[in-house]
């Protein structure tokens, strides 16, 4: 009997290469005659370009070419809209996309103005200093509210204002509900998410083979298929003549999917133009301005409640920072808008947002993708309501949870996948109970906290709930094939940035086909290996690609059984697949190896009957009609030094429900990593722009990523409420850890320091010791 692989905490297939330094990342690609690119980026946030003089750069020894917007011919055009806005009534959406190089004016610090191709990156950077750009500064648009004020400078002159989008979604009738409410709370919130900052920055290597008329591109992208399709279209090539490879990628988290980055177009074009391979590797300084961010929103929100804390409705009006262009549509603010509803029954909802153009880098999804902002608003409103109504913070949440018998639960507004926001399944109260028990909530508040206070220690507890819409379409596909050597290959179109696909996908196939997990070889991220797909984003890899792989595995299993039944002259039901062999149940000694069966299925003679296929192979696709909703509760106990405002996390608990779990070890890693990013977002990472649009926190010494001393040991637990939307019952989990950490910190710090007694409320993220001190000092002064 074999052990079931699905659901087991199996160590990863991909580790050995990574641990011994043998895995290929984009910067490891070395090609003969390879050239190196560097980009000249705007030093100003908003300016007219009067003149660019590249003559000195072109004359420098070792420089092969320098291109500006005027030099790239038809390649110069604004890029496509990647994600259209959802079909919401009355929506305003003003599409403004970036071109590969700036022409006429620049709209953010870091916007590419010219590209230098040279024999080495060192020489290319030398040449950047040779380029003279005359610019006339324009007033930069930095602050969201000032951007909308009359007379504000315009990021896009032809637009007449700085509005990227205006979207209102409602359900029920908030105004009427509020009129009948016992209690209304109104607050303004500021939530700033920050940037993904993976340890590997972006990179592109392009190799044009003029004789073969074939382009190969290595790209740190999360969406190789889309990049292949877009490059083919932009460069006038057939899709079959373009191969995009996303090899091992050192962390994605969202922004590595934003395409087309200028470099993704310019570097392949340069390779074709110069007929030599070209490499561009983003350095860390560039990364701060050249890769997308997910930044801030300002929410004016109100919640209407009954006196026993039941939510009657929520109204929210918010501004969203889009950055200088909006090629990625409205995913982030739509997620904020939808995820604010959380796991709660909110019968009436009126949410309006204005996405604003600013002179800053483009905003696209980063782990959480706008959910954080919405979750912060609702969780804080509930905390303030709890305080004002005299209800315990956990209790007010419990009273509003969607009951277990209410699923599927239709929230009626439109989600990022264009489908109505309907939660497929969920059982929320046990998750809250487990979290409260694990953190010792009751006992802490009743006994421990007073005892610690008496000792002069400021310890607080917090609990926050959230849902996460995951596993959206459009689809993914997979090809599964038993090879002649008995190993099973799996190819799928998505890419991998560390999520363990080489293992979790192998576990699915291992069970279907009866082979050891280590005999399943997964290929991802290579458009020559699998033609179709969308990409790795929105916590969808396991759900969508995983289910496609499962379907393909089932189909291959059927082929194996059919062929083996012919071989053994028995019924298919009598067969057992295990350890890479097929045998009749009860007769293990007489087995046929899968590899032999595969060879039999691909004969040199005989006939492959019409309507059948050679080999033991199947390609299947999976496209969920809508996303699957995961949920969770985080709880934290924190001690705050009242003088320095430094804090120490004493205990951190996550209870999570992502349906059926493929590999609990990998899942735990995803939660840990998400929480670490959430901690960074809540208390360490801040993108600080001055009023000229200059990013002041533009090195890793200033933009603070949490270290091993800043992230606590976490206790994880989970419940399993399978999704009815896919045969495996799984929901996504990639972003869960990052979502509720902001409000968790705010709540815990308020509790630790007794801030409600000082009339100090924490309504912004990120926080920091200095900011806390200011807020409290001002509060004391009142």
């Amino acid at each position, binding site marked *: 009997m074999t052990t079931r692989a699905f659901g087991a905490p199996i160590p990863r297939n991909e580790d050995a290469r990574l641990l011994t330094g043998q895995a290929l990342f984009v910067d490891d690609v070395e090609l003969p005659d390879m050239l190196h690119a560097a980009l000249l980026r705007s030093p100003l946030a908003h300016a007219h370009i009067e003149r660019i003089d590249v003559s000195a750069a072109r004359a420098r020894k070792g420089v092969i070419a320098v291109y500006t917007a005027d030099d790239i011919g038809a390649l110069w055009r604004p890029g496509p809209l990647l994600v259209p806005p959802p079909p919401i009534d009355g929506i305003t959406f003003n599409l403004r996309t970036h071109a590969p190089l700036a022409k006429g004016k620049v709209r953010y610090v870091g916007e590419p103005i010219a590209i230098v191709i040279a024999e080495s*990156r060192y020489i290319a950077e030398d040449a950047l200093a040779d380029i003279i750009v005359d610019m006339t500064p324009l007033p930069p648009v930095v602050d969201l509210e000032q951007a909308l004020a009359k007379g504000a400078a315009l990021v896009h002159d032809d637009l007449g204002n700085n509005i990227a989008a205006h979207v209102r979604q409602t359900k029920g009738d908030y105004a009427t509900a509020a009129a009948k409410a016992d209690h209304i709370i109104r607050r303004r919130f500021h939530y700033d998410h920050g940037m993904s900052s993976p340890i590997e920055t972006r990179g592109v290597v392009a190799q044009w083979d003029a004789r073969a008329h074939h382009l190969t591109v290595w790209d740190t992208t999360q969406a190789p298929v889309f990049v292949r399709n877009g490059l083919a279209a932009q460069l006038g090539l057939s899709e079959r003549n373009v191969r995009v490879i996303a090899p091992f990628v050192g962390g994605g988290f969202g922004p590595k999917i934003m395409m087309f980055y200028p470099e993704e177009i310019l570097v392949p074009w340069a390779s074709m133009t110069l007929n030599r391979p070209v490499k561009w590797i983003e350095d860390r300084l560039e990364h701060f301005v050249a890769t997308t961010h997910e930044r801030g929103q300002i929410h004016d929100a109100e919640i209407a409640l009954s006196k026993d804390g039941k939510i009657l409705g929520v109204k929210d009006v918010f501004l969203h920072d889009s950055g200088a262009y909006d090629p990625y549509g409205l995913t982030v603010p739509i997620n904020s808008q939808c995820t604010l509803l959380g796991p709660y029954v909110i019968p009436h909802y009126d949410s309006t947002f204005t996405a604003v153009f600013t002179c800053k880098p483009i905003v696209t999804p980063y782990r959480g993708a706008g959910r954080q902002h919405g979750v912060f608003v609702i969780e804080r409103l509930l905390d303030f309501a709890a305080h004002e109504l005299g209800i315990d913070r956990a209790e007010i949440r419990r009273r509003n949870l969607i009951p277990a018998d209410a699923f599927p639960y239709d929230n009626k507004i439109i989600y990022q996948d264009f489908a109505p926001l309907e939660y497929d399944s969920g059982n929320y109260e046990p998750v809250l109970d487990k979290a409260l028990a694990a953190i010792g909530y009751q006992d802490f508040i009743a006994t421990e906290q007073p005892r610690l206070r008496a000792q002069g220690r400021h310890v607080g507890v917090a609990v926050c709930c959230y849902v996460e819409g995951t596993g959206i379409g459009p689809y993914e596909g997979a090809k599964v094939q038993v090879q002649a050597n008995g190993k099973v290959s799996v190819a799928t179109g998505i890419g991998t940035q560390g999520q363990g696909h080489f293992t979790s996908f192998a576990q699915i196939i291992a069970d279907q086909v009866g082979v050891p997990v280590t005999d399943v070889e997964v290929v991802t991220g290579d458009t020559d290996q699998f033609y179709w797909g969308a990409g790795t984003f929105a916590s969808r890899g396991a759900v969508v690609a995983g289910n496609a792989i499962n379907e393909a595995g089932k189909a291959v299993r059927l082929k194996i059984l059919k062929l083996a039944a012919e071989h053994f002259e028995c019924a298919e039901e009598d067969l057992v697949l295990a350890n890479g062999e097929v045998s009749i149940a009860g007769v293990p000694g007489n087995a046929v190896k899968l590899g032999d069966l595969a060879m039999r299925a691909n004969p040199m003679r005989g006939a492959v009957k019409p309507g059948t296929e050679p080999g033991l192979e199947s390609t299947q696709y999976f496209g969920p009609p809508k996303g699957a909703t995961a949920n969770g509760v985080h709880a934290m106990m924190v001690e705050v030094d009242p003088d320095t405002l430094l804090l120490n996390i004493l205990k951190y608990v996550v209870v999570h429900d992502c349906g059926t779990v493929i590999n609990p070890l990998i899942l735990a890693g995803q939660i840990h990593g998400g929480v670490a990013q959430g901690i960074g977002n809540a208390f360490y990472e801040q993108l*600080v722009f001055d009023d000229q649009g200059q990013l002041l*926190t533009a090195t890793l010494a200033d933009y603070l990523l949490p270290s091993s001393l800043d992230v606590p040991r976490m206790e994880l637990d989970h419940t399993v409420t399978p999704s009815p939307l896919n045969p495996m019952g799984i929901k996504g989990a990639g972003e869960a850890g990052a979502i509720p950490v902001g409000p968790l910190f705010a709540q815990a710090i308020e509790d630790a320091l007794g801030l409600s007694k000082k009339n100090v409320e924490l309504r912004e993220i990120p926080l920091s*010791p200095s900011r806390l001190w200011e807020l409290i000092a001002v509060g004391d002064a009142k």
Partner: protein
Amino acid sequence: MKPAPFKYIAAKNLDHALALKAEHGEEARFLAGGQSLVPTLNFRLAQPAVLIDINMLDAQAGIHRVNGHALRIGALTRYRTLERSTDIAEAAPLIHEALPHIAHPQIRNRGTIGGNLSHADPASELPAIVLALGGRLHAQSATGERWIPARDFFLSPLTTCLAADEMLTEIELPVAGPRSGFCFMEVARRRGDFAMAGVAIAVTCDAQGRCTSVRGALCGVGDTPVDVSSALAQVCGSADEVGAIKDAAAAVWETIEPGGNVHASAAYQRHLAGVLIERGLPIALERARHG
């Protein structure tokens, strides 16, 4: 982020290094540990024409005592050596206590005390310690040498009084005497980051446990390390030591003009300085009184 071109010369000994510096002046920089210098080269914030590698100057590394009263540390002594030195632990407890706060082990394997002091980052720990202890720094050039009191060494952020042809070769600190107590403390965002504020305190007591001298300096709250010894002096000979410590903290608030930065507002830095005084002084006094 690749550095601009430079000419690299590995100096064989001190005379060679000084001759090269005399020849190239401001166009040349000394490369010691490189942990502060190389990032500035990679950012192209600094673009020296010549880099003089002084890592082979073994004679300028090492710790020895002089006359039992002074400790001399060669400028090329690496943090790692300081961490493992019993001389430092016994004779310069402030340095010993500060070292875990300085960057991270990989940095400490290469960085040198001379490099750190010459770099003169006002948020750096060692300049404040050298100032608090009233140490002096030895500078040499091809044409001469001099001892510079710590109070004259640090001029402004990243600028010392070293002339274009001088190299810092040695640091001299008073050896910790009997009945002395020290405390180094800092508040940083993460372990190893530069301090938002940090304090180095040295006190001496008499046989009866009365405080006879206090010296102190802050890092991170000014353009250079700030000597706050005169503000702390009132703690000596005070009948109400607890009250005097509070007054000393308040006096320190008056003394300093923190500039603030992206991680800490000026007001918060000023507040932290007071907190560090109120926490650090009692610890130093306790150590002086009870070893």
